[in-house]
């Protein structure tokens, strides 16, 4: 082997496709299809970039895994930073969250959003952070990644789906789109692996009312006939 190559390999700067190790993603997401696609589940800690419309089930997709994390690490917090609307505590409590373990941070300035996220991540007293944010640069993501590793924390960034040319150094990238059975997901980026197919995640097990099988007769609104039927 060329000495430069072996040097780079020793420095862990070179990656070879046949050296892919099955990353131990022990954290089950609570959804069978997603677990299969991720070969286990979400990573233990890191940054997960989620591109999604608002209101299609993007938050509900994360709740089962965050709940598991909360039950595993009872003294730690889940932090919600800059949610776009008022978080409904009734829903969280009903799903099984202990509300005193939930912290909502609503900074006024854009700059403070990332600062709060970094502080929460590296504090070591948060197991998960969900961040709603618009744009991120590579350096910002790197900082967040380091902070997440330091505090053993999982950061979910939920952003609007826009075309961006730069690839962010996140642990996992997921693109979400609406689906009748639950949500349609596509893994866009994953450390040490890749897959391009999109798949449907069935959410009926948790929320039967928010999941429709393809052939149910949907009542059109507001036509009078449908209401009668």
């Amino acid at each position, binding site marked *: 082997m060329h000495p430069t190559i072996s040097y780079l390999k020793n420095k862990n700067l070179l990656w070879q496709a046949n050296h892919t190790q099955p990353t131990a993603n022990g954290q089950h997401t609570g959804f069978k299809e997603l677990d299969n696609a991720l070969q286990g589940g979400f990573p233990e800690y890191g940054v997960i970039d989620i591109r999604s419309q608002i*209101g299609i089930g993007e938050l509900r997709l994360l709740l089962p895994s965050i709940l598991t994390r909360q039950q595993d690490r009872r003294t730690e917090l889940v932090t919600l930073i800059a*949610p776009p609307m*008022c978080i409904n*505590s*009734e829903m969280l409590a009903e799903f099984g969250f202990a*509300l005193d373990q939930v912290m*909502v941070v609503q900074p006024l300035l854009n700059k403070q959003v990332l600062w*709060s996220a970094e502080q929460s991540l590296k*504090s070591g007293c948060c197991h998960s952070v969900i961040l709603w944010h618009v744009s991120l640069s590579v350096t910002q993501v790197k900082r967040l990644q380091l902070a997440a590793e330091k505090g053993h924390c999982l950061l979910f960034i939920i952003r609007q789906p826009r075309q961006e040319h730069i690839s962010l150094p996140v642990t996992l990238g997921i693109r979400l789109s609406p689906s009748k059975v639950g949500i349609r997901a596509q893994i866009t980026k994953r450390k040490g692996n890749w897959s391009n197919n999109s798949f449907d995640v069935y959410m009926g097990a948790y929320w039967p009312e928010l999941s429709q099988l393809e052939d149910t007769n*949907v009542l059109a609104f507001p036509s009078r006939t449908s209401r009668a039927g």
Partner: protein
Amino acid sequence: MCWHFPLAHRARDKPLSTYIMQNIWLYLYFPNLQLDALLQQNPDSYIHTQAYVILDEQTNQICQLNRIAHQAGIRLNMGLGTAAMLKADLQVIPYQQEITKNRLNDIAQSLYLVTSDICFFNDNSLLLRVHNMLNLYGNLASYWQVVQRQLSLQQVRFHYATGHSPLAARLLAITAWDQVIDNLDVIKKAIQNTALQHTDLTTKAVKKLQRVGIHTIQALLNIPLAEIAKRFDIEVATYIGKITSQINHPVSFFHPKKSFDRFIELLYDIENIQVLQAPLNQLLQSLEQFLKTRDLLTQTLVFTLSQRDEKSIELNIHSQQGEYLAKYWAVLISLKLEKITLSAPVFAIRLIVENTYIRTPDETDLFAGKQGRLSRLQLISLLQAKLGEEAVSTPTLSNDYRPEQVIQNSKRLTKAIPPFKLYALRPSFLLTLPQRLQEKVFITYGPERISTGWWDAKPITRDYFIARSQLGQWYWIFKTPKGDWYLHGVFS
């Protein structure tokens, strides 16, 4: 055997033993308290190479001076004019009783850890009752060693002397005798040679005595006390009586305060927030020392930054978790300082800490593996210091059927509420105010009627539905009795 603890106050009763214990008092005289405080604040400024004096503005006399000023020939009680002629670049600072008093109080606080009976004398001296401490320390030498070590922490110049009465010790200390001895004869000899000018007698009385040829204490002591009382003022008689401990000298002892209150005067006016950090840190260090020795914690610091010709700024710094460490407070302060602007230079800082409580050990599991650097309360304090208290909240519930009323946000982390029935199928996000439904949606579930609140000002009657928009978003919508449709939440 009788034990005396240094922190316990004893009544002034005589020991039960048969021999009468010899009274010993230790007098500590701090001639340069205000100047020393300045030096301590600015350890590396050029103040050490320049002549500094403190001027008493009432008498227009110099009351404190540093070594350089002394070398230039300036002496105590010299007029400002004379002093200025002796040294052209003399730096003059007005005397402030407040600073001296505060400093003396700090010294007393620190001495209280090793000796019990301390009393203040003349704003610049401390008197310690030694004889009842000797049971604990064994002999005078080891007692003095402990006191000396405690004093060396304070970085202050002082003169000291022991005496068999408070005034005798005072007289010797003022003349810089600087000896700690319990031999009565040596002390008496030293007193006898002292000139009358150093005593606490008024200049008028001293002149009167000099006119009849009495120049030293010894000459005065040769006259019997009754004679002195007859020939001179009663003031002279009491003084001599007190010095020779023929007349009892009542003193009131110091009791340390529970709260921390410190005022520092800055040598220079500070306009820059960054520069302000250094004196603030110094205050925090002394607070840490104060709290640590008492094993206390506090949650609130109140800083008052006095601005020249402007209203002073009050800085309240809160920590959700009780803290004593200076480095932890420094982080919170720097976040708080980012938000304030100084309209005028700051010339003094005061730190008051009112409420303290006893520290209880943290309940952290040694075997839990990863140990967080911060506790959750520390994280919340950190976020609140930067973003403001309103920005950080924790969701809570109240027992109500109205969706707007159920959710509430509390600023502090609250304990779990008693459980009541929660309804499934509630959206993750609620709009602060319901909005008119603008788009075409498909109803997938419903209705669920909520008709309640007739007893107060906000009654509602609504039929809630879950609907799916054409873009695939899940909405929580309702219909009013009038037939209007509103969007109230989103199932994110």
